[in-house]
């Protein structure tokens, strides 16, 4: 059974937006956390955080200076910021309404409940004191949608498009964080142990919820090479570029077997996964970390475009 192209599109975007909402709130958390541990200079960090979320340019267009309060408000609530938590949750829910017939009741109610909770809690400016509570609630609510998805949805094409949206957004997000911070990871910046570097690394790991995971995999010694290896090539790390690409590849493969037709997007995902399989991190550094990440970002973008065409998202 095929599904409507529009529905595939709606599912893909519902889960992309949901993922983006989580990523943005995670970045806000990172910014606040870093600010707390670096007395006095915290506001610099917010420009970098907004840059990681790709919302800095739009912020600058409407604000003269970067302040903590303005940055938090921009990332959490701003209606004219399409990537703010409130905007993305509204979009996710709007897409969910569009594809409601493809969702289970549990998923729809979790999504609608997530939207209602976010709308209420973000109706007013969030004070710093309330920030942990607000971020915690958003994390819980989005996790509930994801949990309901795992627990109640059939593993069919509907699920595949939801997963593809999730992992394209996630891979894109990790790549952008790396792209903003790549210079910190360069060998020339390897003044190991200096407090400045620790802050940068911690920012990176926090931004992708990887501090605990990294410690488990590599111990407490942090170095640039290991971080790059972990976030780009690690097969266990659920936000690494390799992991995201292979999940997209898996779901495209299920679609190939369901629909009995090999799509160009499947081949693109295949070559992306192959690339990660044959690379080691030293080669990545050799070819240029920045260029490498740029090329992955471009590949993710092209893959998304091809999926839209292959599955007739639009007319």
């Amino acid at each position, binding site marked *: 059974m095929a599904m*409507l*192209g*529009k529905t595939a599109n709606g599912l893909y975007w519902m889960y992309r937006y949901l993922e983006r909402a989580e990523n943005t709130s995670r970045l806000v958390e990172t910014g606040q956390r870093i600010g707390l541990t670096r007395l006095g200079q915290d506001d610099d960090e917010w420009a970098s955080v907004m840059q990681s979320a790709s919302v800095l340019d739009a912020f600058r267009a409407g604000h003269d200076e970067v302040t903590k309060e303005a940055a938090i408000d921009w990332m959490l609530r701003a209606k004219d910021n399409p990537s703010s938590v409130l905007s993305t949750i509204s979009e996710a829910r*709007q897409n969910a309404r569009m594809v*409601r*017939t493809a969702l289970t009741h549990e998923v729809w*109610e979790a999504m609608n409940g997530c939207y209602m909770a976010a*709308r209420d809690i973000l109706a007013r400016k969030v004070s710093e004191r309330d920030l942990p509570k607000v971020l915690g609630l958003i994390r819980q609510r989005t996790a509930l949608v994801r949990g309901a998805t795992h627990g109640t949805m059939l593993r069919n094409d509907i699920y595949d498009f939801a997963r593809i949206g999730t992992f394209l957004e996630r891979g894109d997000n990790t790549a952008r964080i790396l792209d903003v911070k790549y210079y910190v990871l360069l060998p020339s910046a390897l003044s190991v142990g200096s407090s400045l570097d620790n802050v940068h690394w911690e920012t990176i790991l926090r931004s992708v919820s990887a501090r605990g995971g990294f410690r488990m995999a590599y111990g407490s010694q942090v170095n640039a090479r290991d971080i790059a290896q972990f976030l780009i090539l690690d097969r266990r790390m659920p936000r690494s570029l390799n992991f995201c690409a292979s999940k997209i590849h898996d779901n495209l493969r299920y679609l190939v077997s369901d629909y009995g037709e090999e799509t160009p997007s499947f081949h693109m995902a295949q070559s992306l996964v192959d690339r990660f399989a044959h690379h080691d991190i030293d080669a990545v550094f050799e070819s240029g970390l920045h260029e490498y990440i740029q090329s992955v970002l471009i590949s993710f973008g092209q893959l998304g475009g091809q999926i839209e065409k292959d599955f*007739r998202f639009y*007319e």
Partner: protein
Amino acid sequence: MSEDKIFDEMWGRDETLRTPYTEFQGWFQDEDLKRLRAKQREAEEVFRLTGITFNVYGRAEAEERLIPFDIIPRIISGREWQKLCKGIEQRVRAINAFLYDIYNRQEIIKAGRLPQDMIARNEAFLPQMIGMMPPGGIYTHIVGIDLVRTGPDQFYVLEDNARTPSGVSYMLENRETMLQMFPELFARNRVQPVQNYPADLRRSLAACAPNRCEGVPTVAVLTPGIYNSAYFEHAFLADQMGVELVEGHDLRVVDGRVAMRTTQGYQPIDVLYRRVDDDFLDPLNFNPESALGIPGIMDVYRSGGITIANAPGTGIADDKAIYSYMPDIVEFYTGEKAILENVPTWRCSDPDSLAYVLDHLSELVVKEVHGSGGYGMLIGPTSSKKEIAEFRKKLMNKPGNYIAQPTLSLSTVPIFTKAGLAPRHVDLRPFVLCSPEGINITPGGLTRVALKKGSLVVNSSQGGGTKDTWVLED
């Protein structure tokens, strides 16, 4: 019309508990008002979370409103319902026969029972349907008959909804909510189920598939989109039936069939349950500005490639000007007197009637012939002198646009208020399905209730609410 005391469906006219409410009253007496107030709030929360909302036209996306739900069921006995069903079935058969006749030989006009003008000059008449036989011979597949009650045995048809009756999702969700909140009340009463409606609807639609259809008919629901006020209902019905919910831009004509764009290419649709008005259905055949429709769908329809439910042009049967002829229409096609009565109606196009209406504006309800949703109407007894004077001007300007009816003393049923039960006026919209297999009436329907004390306007757009409607097994 009776000038007596208003008939209450629980307490009658003389404060004697009526039989259908016996078990309910026994339960209610033992209930704690505080618990019920909490239940009322709980119900609202369920509706909000489920997203049973309607969008308010011309407002931002945030403006999704709940139709207020009242937790006190309206209860009808099986015997009362049986009687109503006979009348509804007769009326729906007549409507389908009328539509066939009007778009074919027009015998009713030849017989002098309906003036030619009523059809020829009616905007709801679709010339494109002339000589067209819809698949299965059914014009109006889904009908909602609006009824009001004035006494124990006195029901009137207020309005026929033959084009796209809405509200059935509320009937289903109201019941679902009641089942969740008051299981013990259902244990004490044998309430006839309404939950089969989506399955019945799907079967009824599939039974109307065109001859070109091979195998299991593919059914789809056509919606104007997520900004439409009834979008929730469209999605709900598609979901419950297990069929696709499509918009105009998901469809196009491919190889003489209407097909939907899927992830694997275009696939033909056999039966389209459309919730888009005639005018927007096909930009090639009707309104060229329409972005909601499917160019060329009417040509596929005429060639027998798809069933459109309800058929285009059915609006001619629920037009308010035609309404006043319904008793004649029923008699003409069924050979029997109409079982369900019409509300006496003055057609203002007729000079004598107009004169009467102008003299009695303060007693009458005056409605626009093509209006809906309770807009553009005058309720004489509750209007100020100024409002009446203004309306008089409009009426004299275009008398043909209006009909007038006496103000009925609509029955009341109890609603739950802060102070306990209080009577409010109601109407009832039962839902009817027609196919070559027969006519199916879901026991119950949508009860709309005017929540304001004394108000007769039950429309949700004007502050009305809804209730679960119970038909008991006798």
